[in-house]
């Protein structure tokens, strides 16, 4: 019987070897994300090369920037003096010198505090709308539009209570008549409020003025311009187009044929024509359709048209959201005995709006960008209107890139911010488990 061979048994583990170079660290990342194949590698090299080329080309222009000068020629002289003959550089001095014009247009300079204050108050009024933890301030958001109007255009202080009183009497009318039907209540409220504004508000303001004159200097609309104008139009149109858009989308899905047809016609008409034709209408035609002798502020006319325009698009976005809600939700709210408006308010709209957030914010971003189109009805938008005005001056004649980069950056910051906020809201409101 032979002795059994001694079995080999490793008593200690081999130390783990390092992964190959192509499979670890930066190399692995590079291999996977930039050089996974020959075409991919070529694209990576080309793309990187393009970026480097752009930086090399543009860096001197930014590096040679001049921040304070009184004219383009002075700018060029400074650049030549500092960086030698033939050097090229940005002349941000134009923004520095014309800062106020870009911000306020031709608003009277001793009253700049008014738009500043209005802007601050706007931010405050946005807080409760944007973030749930400031919900208690919502009353301020409700009254801000009246305050903002008074601050920017000026006139009698009593215009604020007069505007708000319209809503108050409207609310009262709704209380009294809503027992019959919510729709009748809404109609009555709208009627009473409009009657108040049209016929009673002006005498009331006059009366209060004679008792306690509280006035700000009146500023005409044609003096508004720059980003102030963009913000006024954007803010008003965004604020008013959302409720109007919700109503239109509900109307479009209504069982009542006349209301449905009217809403469809309105939405499709607005969506079928370019915004510029609507602005032309505001500028040339709206005066024809008002009682003879009525003068009606151009900015207000533009705001109305832009609101209609945005509302039609929002209505379509919300219609998509409504279509995505399962039938069971409508049936459940019916079986609970909710009325039409209760069901819309408590069951349908919260879900539809949540689905539509990206689309709605998309419309808002588009709307804010479209505020620049007011240049076509001779209002001073910050892109072309103010820049042309600046360039019209002999000292800044011939300056192109700096004003465009400046206003483009401001638009980018706000639009990008809006789209990021929409993403945040979407994440926050997400209640499913995917």
């Amino acid at each position, binding site marked *: 019987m032979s002795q059994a061979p001694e079995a080999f048994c490793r008593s200690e583990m081999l130390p783990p070897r390092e992964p190959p170079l192509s499979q670890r660290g930066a190399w692995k990342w590079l291999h996977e994300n930039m050089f996974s194949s020959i075409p991919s590698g070529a694209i990576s090299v080309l793309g990187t090369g393009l970026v480097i080329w752009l930086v090399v080309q543009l860096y001197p222009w930014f590096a040679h920037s001049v921040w304070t000068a009184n004219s383009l020629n002075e700018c060029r002289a400074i650049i030549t003096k500092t960086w030698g003959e033939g050097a090229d550089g940005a002349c941000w001095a134009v923004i520095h010198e014309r800062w106020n014009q870009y911000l306020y247009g031709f608003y009277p300079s001793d009253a700049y505090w008014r738009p500043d204050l209005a802007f601050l108050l706007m931010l405050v009024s946005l807080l409760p709308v944007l973030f749930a933890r400031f919900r208690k301030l919502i009353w301020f958001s409700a009254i801000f539009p009246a305050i903002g109007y008074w601050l920017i255009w000026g006139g009698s202080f009593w215009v604020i209570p007069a505007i708000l009183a319209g809503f108050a009497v409207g609310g009262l009318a709704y209380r009294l008549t809503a027992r019959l039907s919510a729709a009748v209540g809404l109609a009555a409220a709208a009627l009473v409020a409009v009657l108040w504004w049209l016929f009673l508000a002006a005498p009331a303001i006059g009366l209060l003025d004679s008792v306690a004159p509280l006035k700000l200097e009146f500023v005409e609309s044609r003096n508004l311009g720059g980003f102030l104008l963009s913000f006024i139009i954007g803010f008003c149109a965004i604020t008013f187009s959302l409720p109007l858009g919700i109503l239109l989308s509900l109307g479009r899905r209504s069982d*009542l044929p006349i209301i449905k047809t009217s809403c469809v016609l309105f939405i499709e008409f607005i969506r079928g024509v*370019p915004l510029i*034709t609507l602005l*032309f209408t505001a500028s040339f035609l709206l005066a024809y359709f008002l009682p003879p002798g009525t003068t009606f502020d151009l900015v207000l006319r533009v705001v109305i048209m832009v609101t209609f325009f945005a509302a039609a698009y929002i209505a379509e976005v919300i219609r998509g959201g409504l279509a995505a809600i399962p039938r069971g939700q409508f049936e459940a709210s019916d079986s609970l005995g909710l009325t039409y408006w209760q069901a819309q308010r408590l069951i349908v709209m919260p879900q539809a709006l949540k689905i539509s957030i990206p689309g709605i914010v998309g419309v808002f971003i588009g709307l804010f*960008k479209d505020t620049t189109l007011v240049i076509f009805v001779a209002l001073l938008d910050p892109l072309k209107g103010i820049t042309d005005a600046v360039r019209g001056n002999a000292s800044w004649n011939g300056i192109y890139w700096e004003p465009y980069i400046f206003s483009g950056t401001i638009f*980018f910051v706000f639009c990008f911010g809006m789209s990021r906020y929409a993403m945040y809201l979407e994440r926050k409101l997400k209640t499913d488990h995917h």
Partner: protein
Amino acid sequence: MSLAEKRPDSGFRLSKLIYDSQYRGYTIQFLFLCALALLIGWLVDNAYMNLAKLGITPNFSFLTNRAGYDISFKLIHYTNDSTHGRAALVGLINTLFVSFLGCIAATVLGVVVGVLRLSKNWVIARLMTIYVEVVRNVPLLLWLLVIFAVFTEATPAPRDFRGANPSAHMWLWNSMAVTNRYVALPAPEFFRSLGNIDLVVFKVSLDLLALVAVVVLGGLADRALRNHAARVQEATGRRPTTWWATVLLYFGPPIALLAILGFHFDYPKMTGFNFTGGMLAPNSLFALWFGLTIYTAVYIAEIVRAGILAVSKGQTEAAYALGLRPGRTMRLVVLPQALRVIVPPMISQFLNLTKNSTLAAAVSYPDLGATLGGVTLNQTGRALESILLMMVTYLIISLLISIAMNLFNRRVRLKER
């Protein structure tokens, strides 16, 4: 469980108009209609009074009056002796022309960017993301102005091309030149042209029509060939090779036709202080075209990306499991399903591009808004008629594009059983 009895019918009472949901709808609609009629009546009455006060009666006869202004870019015959109506037509054709060019270029660029944004290559995906975010968060007007400024400020004047040692050079073997006023391009011409056909309002080149006809016929023949190949494949399991016939059908007849007609280019040449010969297209056309393209391409890219992402990963994996290569997987499995998601929003982007072409005024491209809604409106003072006509025209364009695209949409729609 009790069965509901027949609803008690107590007859109609007046209070039912408010309290009975069955009748309340009629009340609401009646009130709504009354309010609407009042509003419209009020508006029309105001307009009537205002116009009467100004002594204007709306009519469209101004369209037959002499226009008296020049248009810098026109595709049909027009002089300043032509009528306002013809000026509007020139503008309309310019609008359609730039929209058409823009739609094609934006689709190509958008699809490329959308696909590249999904690429695994980090550099290209990041670059495309930056492009998309930067372009879509800045107004289109700015892009138009910037591109127009590039064309007018960063390009040489025509006189710089002059002399033996010019400071500026033409591109592409001396065939085209970009100047600060226009782009000089070679013009296609024919030695043995077929002439024009007069369609009352404008003339159409018969050469162009013949070319289109030949291409369409080639396409039809190619389709027949493919159907035949598919039938052979069904019957025998083997598909005959057809790619060379396809190439031949698409390229052969047009090339032959061009040779027969004596096709050649008329190159722009420097004479005096300006280019002559060739085609001189204004910079505004290119600025508007490029601006609309890069702006709309961003939205199309996002639509394409969303469409591709909407196709579930299982589809790709199943295709790989069946042994399809990545290219064929994309073409045969992913794209047909993605198109279903892509096409409807793409239609609205084409419509948006067409409507956005009204920004032409910013770069002084003579579109419908600049002729009918611009000079004609200001010269004649016929604001009501001009704007109405403009709106109706855009509505019709929108309607036509959406009808055409919906037909296409119906073809690519998933056929569910």
